[in-house]
């Protein structure tokens, strides 16, 4: 099947406007007849559910957390980009578009990125109207800060918790619609499968995490807003519950998975402290506005306390390597530079996997009070976790898995190749290419939910007879039986090892072979070992309790089973992409100075994988990427 991206014709700057004008409409009376299922309640899910309900559609929204407000968008710290140019520093829609395409190492779809930049300005308006308390200046207008990969200040923020504030805004919009009766909210409810009827996504199967009840829900369209797959690495900055199940189950039902090898390793996280560790904590990238990253020049200095290492013996490696962006170099580049320093034996802290992020100079220049105002909550969090004060000594940081640019393939309308299945936010692949810039995830989630899908869902829905498929269709009974079968197998297994022990083993393997640097030998080894581990998991996993009540081990087992399958596709994609770009770094493909070497002749495409029934033999489809506005160039931040 050929992939049709449905990019509108015409000049880049008018594509979205024209597409909106040309889009089919559904009259208000008829909208009420359509039911849309929204899975996930993060920025993309909440904003989509609320906006579709405002338009008149019947919406059912699902989240596995106990409240929609707890979806993991809430943990985003730094900010949200928008091309407002309130700073008069030369920003524009075109510049945000350009920075994002370049930041993504020329592996994103231009038309989608341009639309994202266009609607970014509306997002800020919307959020302010909802009462989101963005930081402001004394005159009462909105404040901005700069962020990695950009030379303008276009990031709006709310202390160190922009994600929580934006999500609370979207959640309040959702609450307004729940109150009105137009959204039916199902919390503590997890998707187990997607139901496909006559080639269209027409429903989902869920499990009530309190009662264990398996339920079927039918809809005229399904929206997956279920986030990324970073937890395939076990240790990541994702919440414990983040998982690949919704997108993976949809993939098994026919949706193509695009560019899974594009994973973002965030440079500023608190280093791993022991094997009991359950997650890694991000320290916002905004810290790099004032913090300077360094390691000792000489390996013999690494045991010394930071203050005993003289200025001339310090290697401020980002400033040295990337003088024009310095400590604000993009995430992939900063992460690799930190890894290199540690690989050279110059890493600091226990295990030698850490670099310093030093605020001494900023504290001298601006005073401790100003630094506390800017980053106080982050410094507090650092102290709680490490027991160290970043006012007194430099922070120790190390890269960690943070975000996944890959996801289900979608066309310009955010619909996957499986008709009816729409994918929003981190769960799709479309806007960030091979690397996402800081403060762009929140922008994309809200763009998709508030402004894109409300327009682009109509062209699909008008082709559908509302309510034509109900849960009495035999496909629902079949899907329920599949889900019950999986649950019975887990509970009846009586193995010897816990779910977590398998998850940890899988994560270490994937991090080792398909983490910050990858090569063919390592990936092939991972592809041999993952199926073995998967087999061992299914024969040896021990899941206690029953299916008829709250059972967190059973929930985890289902998620890890899907990670065990997904991991193979991740490594296969990384092996097939014989180039380095953004977050995907193949050691075979680099310039003599260690920079990533892209291969535009052979790999300027989206790799969309089709499930064939055999995990070892997925079918690759390519969507060629065409660059009309931004010319393909070596991505340099020097």
């Amino acid at each position: 099947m050929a992939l049709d991206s449905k990019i509108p014709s015409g000049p880049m700057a008018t594509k979205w406007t024209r597409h909106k004008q040309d889009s089919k409409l559904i009259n208000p009376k008829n909208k009420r007849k359509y039911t849309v299922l929204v899975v996930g309640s993060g920025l993309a899910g909440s904003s989509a559910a609320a906006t579709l309900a405002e338009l008149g559609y019947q919406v059912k929204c699902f989240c596995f957390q106990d409240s929609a407000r707890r979806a993991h968008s809430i943990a985003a710290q730094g900010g949200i980009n928008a091309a407002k140019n309130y700073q008069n520093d030369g920003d524009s829609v075109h510049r945000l578009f350009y920075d994002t395409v370049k930041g993504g190492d020329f592996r994103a779809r231009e038309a989608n990125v341009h639309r994202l930049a266009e609607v970014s300005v509306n997002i800020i308006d919307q959020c302010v109207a909802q009462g989101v308390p963005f930081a402001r200046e004394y005159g009462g207008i909105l404040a901005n800060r700069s962020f990695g990969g950009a030379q303008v200040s276009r990031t709006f923020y709310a202390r160190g918790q922009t994600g929580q504030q934006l999500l609370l805004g979207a959640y309040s919009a959702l609450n307004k619609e729940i109150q009105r009766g137009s959204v039916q909210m199902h919390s503590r409810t997890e998707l187990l499968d997607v139901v496909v009827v006559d080639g269209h996504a027409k429903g989902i199967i869920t499990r009530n995490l309190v009662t264990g009840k398996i339920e079927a829900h039918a809809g005229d369209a399904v929206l997956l807003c279920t986030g990324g797959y970073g937890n395939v690495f076990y240790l990541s900055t994702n919440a414990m519950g983040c998982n690949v199940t919704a997108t993976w189950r949809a993939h098994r039902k026919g949706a193509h998975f695009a560019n899974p090898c594009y994973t973002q390793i965030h440079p500023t996280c608190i280093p791993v402290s022991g094997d009991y560790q359950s997650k890694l904590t991000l320290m916002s990238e905004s810290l790099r506005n004032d913090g300077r990253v360094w390691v000792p020049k000489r390996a013999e200095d690494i045991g010394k306390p930071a203050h005993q290492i003289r200025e001339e013996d310090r290697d401020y490696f980002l400033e040295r390597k990337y003088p024009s962006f310095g400590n604000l170099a993009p995430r992939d580049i900063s992460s690799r530079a930190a890894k290199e320093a540690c690989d050279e034996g110059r890493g600091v802290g226990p295990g030698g996997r850490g670099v310093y992020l030093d605020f001494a100079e900023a504290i001298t220049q601006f005073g401790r009070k100003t630094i506390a105002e800017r980053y106080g909550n982050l410094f507090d969090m650092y102290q709680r976790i490490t027991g160290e004060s970043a006012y007194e000594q430099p922070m120790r940081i190390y890269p960690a898995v943070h975000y996944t640019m890959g996801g289900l393939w979608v066309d310009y309308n955010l619909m996957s190749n499986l008709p009816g299945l729409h994918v929003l936010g981190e769960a799709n692949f479309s806007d960030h290419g091979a690397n996402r810039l800081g403060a762009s995830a929140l922008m994309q989630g809200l763009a998709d939910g508030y402004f894109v899908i409300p327009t682009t869902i109509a062209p699909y829905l008008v082709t559908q007879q509302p309510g034509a498929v109900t849960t009495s269709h035999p496909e629902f009974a079949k899907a329920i039986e599949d889900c019950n079968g999986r649950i019975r197998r887990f509970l009846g297994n009586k193995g010897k090892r816990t779910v977590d022990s398998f998850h940890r083993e899988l994560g270490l393997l994937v991090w080792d072979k398909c983490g910050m640097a990858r090569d063919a030998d390592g990936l092939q080894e991972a592809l041999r070992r993952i199926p073995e581990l998967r087999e061992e998991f299914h024969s040896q996993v021990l899941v206690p309790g029953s299916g008829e009540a709250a059972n967190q081990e059973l929930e985890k087992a289902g998620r890890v089973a899907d990670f065990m399958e997904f991991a193979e596709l991740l490594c296969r994609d990384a092996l097939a992409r014989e180039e380095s770009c953004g977050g995907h770094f193949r050691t075979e493909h680099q310039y003599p100075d260690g920079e990533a070497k892209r291969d535009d002749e052979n790999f300027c495409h989206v790799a969309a994988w089709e499930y064939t029934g055999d995990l070892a033999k997925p079918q690759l489809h390519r969507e060629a990427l065409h660059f009309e506005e931004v010319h393909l160039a070596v991505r340099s931040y020097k």
Partner: protein
Amino acid sequence: MSLLNLHLKVWRQHRGQPGHFQDIEAREIPDHASFLEMMDIVNERLITSGQDPVAFDHDCREGICGMCSMQINGVPHGPERATTTCQLHMRHFREGDTIWIEPFRAKAFPVVKDLMVDRGAFDRIQQAGGFITVRTGSAPDANAIPIGKEVADAAMDAAACIGCGACVAACKNASAMLFVSAKAGQLNSLPQGQPEKDRRTLAMVRQMDKEGFGHCTNHYECEAACPKEISVRWITKLNRDYAAAGLREAFVGRQEAAEGGD
């Protein structure tokens, strides 16, 4: 890093049934581990020895989602000030300590299992009025209404609430006033929130009462327990907003108050 041996007294309960404390020995716990990582270690051992692991809510483990709860030695989120359970680390405990671990207790927070409770009441309070009615696409330019830094900062102070419910668990009356006042206060103090101020205040307080939370008797245990240090001054503001809204409703009449209220 050192290892700790601890005696845990953990509340075990199935939904709708009576609960009890179970003694669990937690041996060789790394002091760098977080409290929830200690629970993970305990659960791994319970599972492999054929016992039922302890159910507890958690998700982001970085102190912002508000999912983790637990009453630790009688204090919501444990002994560290301004710290959620997930951010509490074992270095704050001593070798041989006995630790009592219970769910957040309140009539309005029924136990789901062990340490998990149902905080759906918080969602319903916000559904009753915790929003500004603004349709997507209908907003004016973000800088059209200047908002003084002090006002914006105060709204942000209230907005920092993570909805965990520690304030309710800390209160002897299981009152939700700190939570509701922070939620209403954020919107009531901003210019955008003025048109619906009365309606919001009355609806949220009435829903709070309906959910079975107790009254506030000004003991301020809530503020002491709040991991985000929400100030009880918001309760004062809510009381004021509620009184004014109630008066307007009584004297002007609900309909007129709604139509041209202020």
